[in-house]
């Protein structure tokens, strides 16, 4: 996958959150919801990043490794939002 496409896909969780915020669909405790969502996605990106090398072999997708740094940085990004 091209790096630019990967970048946009990684931004989708943030976009989903922004969409809900715009529609006022964040519930009674919005800060809690944003905290949970950003934390969940930080964890998911972390797990994916750690699994990239193995996944690329198992799924025979050698080009997956090219986005490993980006995935890791997105884990950091969502973690910063969470904090």
């Amino acid at each position, binding site marked *: 996958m091209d790096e630019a496409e990967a970048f946009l896909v990684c931004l989708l969780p943030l976009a989903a959150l922004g969409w809900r915020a715009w529609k006022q669909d964040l*519930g*009674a*405790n919005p*800060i*809690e919801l944003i905290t949970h969502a950003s934390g969940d996605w930080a964890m998911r990106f972390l797990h994916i990043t750690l699994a990239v090398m193995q996944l690329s072999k198992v799924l025979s997708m050698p080009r997956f490794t090219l986005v490993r740094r980006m995935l890791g940085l997105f884990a950091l990004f969502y973690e910063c939002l969470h904090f």
Partner: protein
Amino acid sequence: MSISWKISDLPYSSVTPKSVYLNRRGFLASVAFGAFGSAAIANTKLNVVKSKFSTTEQPTPYEGVTNYNNFYEFGTAKSDPSHNAKNFRTIPWTVAIEGAVSKPQVLDLDSLLKIAPLEERIYRHRCVEAWSIVVPWIGFPLNALIKAANPLSSAKYVAFQSLYDPKQMPQGRYAGIQFPYVEGLRMDEAMHPLALLGVGLYGEVLPNQNGAPIRLVVPWKYGFKSIKSIVKIRFVEKQPPTTWNIAGPGEYGFYSNVNPEVDHPRWSQAKERRLGEFLKRPTLKFNGYADQVAGLYAGMDLRKNF
């Protein structure tokens, strides 16, 4: 806000079907629980007395109070109870009064509502999880029920039990705490004028997710002490077990008075998030009801008796 609401002479057999009631959200125009719309009763007026115990703080919006709930029998997510309790049957309902009383009895909702005039009490509600809301409850003082029950002198505590019906509460299996939910108060706490038996909020009958049809409201304690959907009130001699204390004895005590000076083992209780506000606000001792209740705990070590 003037609420017309009558403690009724209408029997439960005339109650409007729940589905109809749910479509008519808004102020109760007529009699007791759920009896809507008949022309004969449309003009009967009820008075809900305003209380000197109400706070002047702004109540939390209705949508927040009714869609952000901890009612683990219906699921552990905050949005679960409002989704999963839609078909919870709250009529007919009885509360058994038992234990150290001169005459054990079983009261239905009609009888319960006749015990004392309904009042509006706008109370702060502080969850142990460090969020809080302000709720305009409708109910009557617990001490009125206790006086009517006539407990024996051996009764030192009041124990409460919720309904647990696995058929209506399938999500309860995964809650991680034991059911039926039980709670308790010391007799002087239960007799305190602030302790309320709640039957409504925002001018309406209690929504299912808020503990319909009758619940406890003890505003100076963490919210989990305010047991919902009560089916049993038992007067006992020894301190009764309480569900969250059973689940985590080091984390949830019998007293669980709101106290910014005593942290939960895993998080601070010094501040709380008032729903709707961005910044956290300082937590008040006894949830701001110190003037009224601090005397109950004079001389007690509140760190040991948390």
